[in-house]
């Protein structure tokens, strides 16, 4: 049990950025993020005994974390403030122009992901995390062709959004 615990801690620590990213993508509220991080930790620990290595550890971890995040999000979903781009965000201000541009684009991307439904959000996170289509299909339980079609559609919408805001 102790060895199991050490091994679990080591593996989760190496991948904890995944948990942070998922919590940030699914919860805008700081307190909800805390609760979700706890829920994910608990469910990962609870499921770890059943992890048999038939899939990659990261695939297993994404499945648990995204399943928990979607369930949690659906239970706590309320009229959360959508990240709005304010004038201050779109102004270059005193910052270096490139830096300001980068921050504005990060905000557009966050806003876009925030507006996606639960399942498309999971798909987009996996795509941006540079997972291959076959692994995304395995995590989500859909076909690779379906993954490719959906990603292409979402990217088209995102491109439109960037061009509308930037022009």
């Amino acid at each position, binding site marked *: 049990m102790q060895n199991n615990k050490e091994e679990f801690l080591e593996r989760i620590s190496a991948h*904890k950025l995944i948990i942070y990213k998922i919590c940030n993508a699914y919860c805008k509220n700081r307190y909800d993020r805390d609760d979700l991080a706890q829920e994910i930790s608990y469910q990962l*620990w609870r499921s770890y005994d059943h992890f048999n290595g038939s899939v990659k550890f990261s695939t297993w971890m994404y499945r648990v974390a995204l*399943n928990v995040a979607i369930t*949690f999000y659906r239970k706590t979903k309320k009229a959360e403030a959508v990240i709005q781009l304010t004038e201050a965000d779109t102004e270059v201000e005193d910052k270096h122009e490139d830096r300001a541009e980068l921050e504005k684009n990060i905000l557009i991307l966050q806003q876009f992901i925030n507006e996606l439904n639960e399942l498309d959000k999971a798909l987009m996170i996996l795509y941006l995390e540079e997972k291959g289509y076959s692994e995304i299909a395995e995590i989500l*339980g859909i076909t690779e062709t379906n993954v490719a079609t959906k990603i292409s559609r979402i990217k088209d919408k995102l491109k439109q959004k960037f061009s509308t805001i930037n022009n």
Partner: protein
Amino acid sequence: MEDIALKDLWKAQDEKLDRTMKLNLYLLESLQKQKAESRLNSLARFKGWAVVLGVVWVLFLGLLIYGNRLQNIYFTVSIGMILIFNILAVAVYIKHIVLIRQLDYSKSITDTQKKLSELQASTFNTRFLLLQTPFYCTWFWSTEMIEGSGIKFWLIAVPIALLFTLLAIWLYRNLVPGKMHKKWVRSLIMSTPEHTSVMKAQDFLNEIAEFKKG
């Protein structure tokens, strides 16, 4: 905006991520205690309370039958039927709790979310309880009442029992997930304590089906 640029943007947000959230990986023992408080367990908690109330109700009905000791056949049969329906409902709820506890979050997202939503929408699985309604119209019947009230019994009591029987059968056959798009089905679901979660779950099941279709 090219693929690489999008992925670079995603990586660039890493440094801005909120990492202050409590990730108590080093307090695994305390995570065990969290089980009871887990927000994800609210469905099991709701069904747990339903089982407790159901068991109390079943015991009460059992006592009534035991107290009557076949003195009135109408009472015994009616309460006996209500008792059977409620024992079945308690069994269905216990089965749901077991399934919720066994839910595996490490299966694919669409499979797990589908199972979970089906459990949330499982109010439909207990709609057979509607069929007990006619027995609430007959438990107070007795041979004395039938003989004493003459034609009034056949003109009032029997038609009411028949009406409730037909209504219960009709509702049982029509109150199904496939008819959730109908306004009256949604209105009826709205009158149950689980309405919000049932409707949300049913809508999410449709979303999952659409998502899988592509």
